[in-house]
């Protein structure tokens, strides 16, 4: 393996590891040592981090020592003016986490939400642990922690009041940041009690009594976003909005084919361009996740940098660069699909061959989908400032801690010499789990006096993405005499960067198995080499694999002569011991059945529709959520699709903030339809052909579904994330509805390949 290819493989392994970490939704239990008071006026509560080796921090320390106790994180503070401040440790990428995390603490504290402020926590892995946003895991990770933090703060305030008033703490009631003792007629605000409370010992987490769902006054209701006023008035919140005194601007030109190196460039000519301050070649370390070679242009403004960059004349050494073509890859996949099943199956349950031999009905189909881009509305950028031996960065990233580590590595600095400021993020969708643009900005900043903002152009953003991998599924399924799913064989032709493992986001999703529980099941993969980097895209794996699975389930239901909904319910309720979910899985057949039934009922499943109109349904278990979607659409003679109504039924446990959860579901429907209808990245000679929104159409307002109804199955289950689970079932629901409306089976995304449009 050449060194270039091994760098690619290393980068791919890094992304796979990042995804695994992001998706492990383990809620952090509170450390046995529990809470810690931190420095500051009023009451500031943090936690000891689990597993911390700092025994000396066991004794809660007095005010002013926060900096000496680096294992402590701050989550909540009560100021004497009765303001409650909550620190949101995860990036806000549009998932509404800042509002949701604040509400969890405020609920448990019985805080006055109108006087609660949510602030972005500083980025420090040693203090806060994992601070990423990915995998829809922030809520489940934070749920117990933040409720306990709120409850602990309230307990301390109550204890302070009980002392002051000489009353039994059990007789004190809390509401809207005010404590009241009815019998004595005494009451006080949290703010008035905060300083006294801060002098009391912190409670043992085990003694805290958390509120029950029936007692909630905030959780489950609809709230405005905590930053919405700032957003609608255009205040600077995003990475791209960062401005520092004396700041200059940078563009960075890399080889359009990943892996190309700079042979020569007209650097002197570029330096002479108007408003250009400098230009230089960066060799890079060859890892797409860190620093690829290129030419940096430093200018007085972004436009001058972009203009100069248009005049760049670079001769690239492409000997180690990616050379694939997506058309060729698709053709090769089709050949593999027609060839033998892989010798080594990934899963093999029952006896698939015998089941096919004795099946009442057997069908086969080939499903495929293309590479897609993230196309974040805010193109990648980072502001970096090298000063006093410290690299300070402001970055719109989903994974600030990792960025800090990577930047330290690339610069050869200790991690404590890299400071990262988290900004609001103009779309994540998984792209910003990678921090390549942070590394670039940092390396550029080392050569620039004063702060510098690296800005990618839209074309850069398309050219240097970590694409959702294309995929190809040869499916064979059988139904038994009772019309039940009996056998499922899936040959998945996908990609590898290291020749052994599926590339990032290219392997079977661990979530998909439960939605087609066949007693006889065989899955295998053929891995095709690919250098073009791939990575997570909203609901990785699920976002496309459910398209193939849920459409084929519809095909099988029809082949069996069964009602689609009944067929899906049968399959999910089927007891297949080998497909029993692991202990830590959230999957529950009853919850799955619940969303399928609710969705069908709300959508009017079984109703008679006029000609040209169809109702389609699909469901998924993804990122700990169970979600079903039903789409009612019509298709005209020119294959123009009009979506009249979408019904989403979701079970993500308790709903934390309803308006945000509904909005995530609505947005996911639009996003998925947009992706399924017309999005496709074409790779030619290792280069991404699409460079802007003209060639890569994002769905526009007139064509979006006008009605997206969202229903939640309410339960006492702990909440899980909403950023991803409402996406995967939308594309197959649309395709199934197209079949219902037209009789044409859509087995490829984007649907525009078959002439469909809006």
């Amino acid at each position, binding site marked *: 393996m050449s060194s270039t290819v091994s760098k690619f493989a290393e980068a791919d392994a890094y992304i796979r590891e990042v995804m695994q970490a992001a998706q492990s939704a383990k809620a952090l239990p509170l450390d046995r040592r529990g809470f810690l008071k931190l420095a500051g006026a009023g009451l500031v509560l943090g936690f000891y981090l689990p597993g911390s080796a700092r025994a000396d921090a066991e004794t809660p320390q007095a005010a002013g020592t926060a900096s000496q106790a680096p294992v402590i994180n701050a989550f909540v503070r009560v100021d004497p003016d009765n303001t409650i401040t909550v620190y949101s440790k995860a990036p806000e990428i549009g998932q509404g986490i800042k509002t949701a995390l604040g509400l969890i603490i405020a609920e448990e504290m019985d805080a006055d939400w109108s006087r609660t402020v949510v602030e972005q926590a500083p980025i420090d892995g040693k203090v806060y642990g994992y601070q990423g946003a990915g995998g829809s895991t922030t809520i489940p990770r934070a749920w117990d922690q933040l409720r306990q933090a709120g409850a602990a703060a309230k307990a301390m305030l109550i204890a302070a009041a009980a002392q002051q008033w000489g009353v039994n703490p059990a007789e004190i009631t809390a509401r809207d940041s005010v404590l009241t003792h009815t019998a004595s007629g005494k009451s006080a605000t949290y703010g008035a009690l905060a300083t006294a409370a801060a002098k009391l010992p912190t409670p043992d987490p085990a003694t805290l009594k958390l509120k029950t769902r029936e007692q909630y006054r905030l959780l489950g209701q609809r709230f405005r976003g905590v930053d919405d006023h700032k957003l609608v008035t255009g205040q600077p919140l995003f990475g*791209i909005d960062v401005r520092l005194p004396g700041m200059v601007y940078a563009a960075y030109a890399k080889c359009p084919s990943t892996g190309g190196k700079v042979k020569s460039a007209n650097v002197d000519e570029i330096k002479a361009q108007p408003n250009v301050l400098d230009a230089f070649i960066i060799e890079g370390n060859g890892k797409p996740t860190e620093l690829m070679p290129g030419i940096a242009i430093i200018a007085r403004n972004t436009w001058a940098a972009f203009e100069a960059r248009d005049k760049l004349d670079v001769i690239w050494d492409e000997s180690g660069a990616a050379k694939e073509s997506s058309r060729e890859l698709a053709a090769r996949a089709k050949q593999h699909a027609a060839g033998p099943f892989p010798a080594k199956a990934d899963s093999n349950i029952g006896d698939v061959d015998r089941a096919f031999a004795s099946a009442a009905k057997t069908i086969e189909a080939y499903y495929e989908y293309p590479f897609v881009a993230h196309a974040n509305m805010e193109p990648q950028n980072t502001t970096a400032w090298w000063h006093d031996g410290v690299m300070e960065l402001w970055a719109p990233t989903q994974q600030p801690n990792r960025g800090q580590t990577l930047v330290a590595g690339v610069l050869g600095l200790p991690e404590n010499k890299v400071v990262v400021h988290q900004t609001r993020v103009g779309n994540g969708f998984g792209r910003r789990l990678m921090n390549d643009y942070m590394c670039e900005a940092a390396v550029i900043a080392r050569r620039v006096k004063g702060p510098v903002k690296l800005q990618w152009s839209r074309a850069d953003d398309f050219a240097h993405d970590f694409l959702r991998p294309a995929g190809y599924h040869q499916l064979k399924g059988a139904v038994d005499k009772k019309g039940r799913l009996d056998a499922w064989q899936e040959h998945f032709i996908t990609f590898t960067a290291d020749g052994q493992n599926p590339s990032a986001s290219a392997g079977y999703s661990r979530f998909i198995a439960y939605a087609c529980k066949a007693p006889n099941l065989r899955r295998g993969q053929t891995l095709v080499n690919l250098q073009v980097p791939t990575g997570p895209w909203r609901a990785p794996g699920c976002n496309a694999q459910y398209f193939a699975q849920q459409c084929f389930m519809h095909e099988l239901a029809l082949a069996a002569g069964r009602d689609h909904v009944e067929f899906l319910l049968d399959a999910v309720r089927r007891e297949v011991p080998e497909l029993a979910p692991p202990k830590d899985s959230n999957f529950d057949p009853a919850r799955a059945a619940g969303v399928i039934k609710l969705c069908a009922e709300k959508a009017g499943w079984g109703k008679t529709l006029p000609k040209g109109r169809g109702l389609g349904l699909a469901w998924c278990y993804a990122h700990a959520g169970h979600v079903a979607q039903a789409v009612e659409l019509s298709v005209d003679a020119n294959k123009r699709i009009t979506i009249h109504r979408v019904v989403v039924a979701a079970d993500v446990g308790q709903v934390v903030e309803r308006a945000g959860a509904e909005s995530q579901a*609505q947005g996911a429907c639009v996003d998925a339809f947009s992706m399924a209808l017309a999005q496709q990245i074409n790779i030619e000679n290792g280069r991404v052909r699409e460079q802007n929104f003209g060639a890569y159409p994002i769905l526009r307002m007139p064509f979006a579904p006008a009605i997206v109804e969202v229903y939640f199955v309410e339960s006492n289950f702990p909440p899980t994330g909403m950023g991803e689970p409402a996406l995967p079932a939308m594309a197959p629901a649309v395709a199934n509805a197209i079949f219902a409306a037209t009789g044409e089976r859509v087995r490829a995304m984007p649907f525009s390949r078959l002439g469909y449009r809006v």
Partner: protein
Amino acid sequence: MITLQINGQSHTVDAPDDMPLLWVLRDLIGLTGTKYSCGIGRCGACTVHLDGKAEHACMVNVGSVGKRAVTTIEAIGETPVGAKIQAAWVEAKVAQCGYCQAGQIMAATALLNHTPHPSDADIDAAMAGTLCRCGTYVRLREAIKNAAKA
């Protein structure tokens, strides 16, 4: 030197005539509410008003602005319709990531200035140029209708 009327104030900038208004606003004047996204007039994130008309700031050369009044997201709330739209946006919880919303608000305000009670078709026509990657269109439409009623 070019003198511009922006949000009721006069700004003199040292910029070549062909520099897009977008970058003059963001980098030279420091009004970062107007967003860069596509740079070719395909996404609408940089929508501003020139004499009340919605324009893509990335497609307007600063030398061509002349005496026309430039209004950006930072000041649109000072107009009654702009304030109404902003309030409706917060009320309907339109924003997810929020990056495109400045452009959406500028496009919607221009629509209501011109057509106080828009039909769905009017809304489609006015808003088709402004992309939202989060897919907030359902709420965008609702917020525009609510603002029109307010």
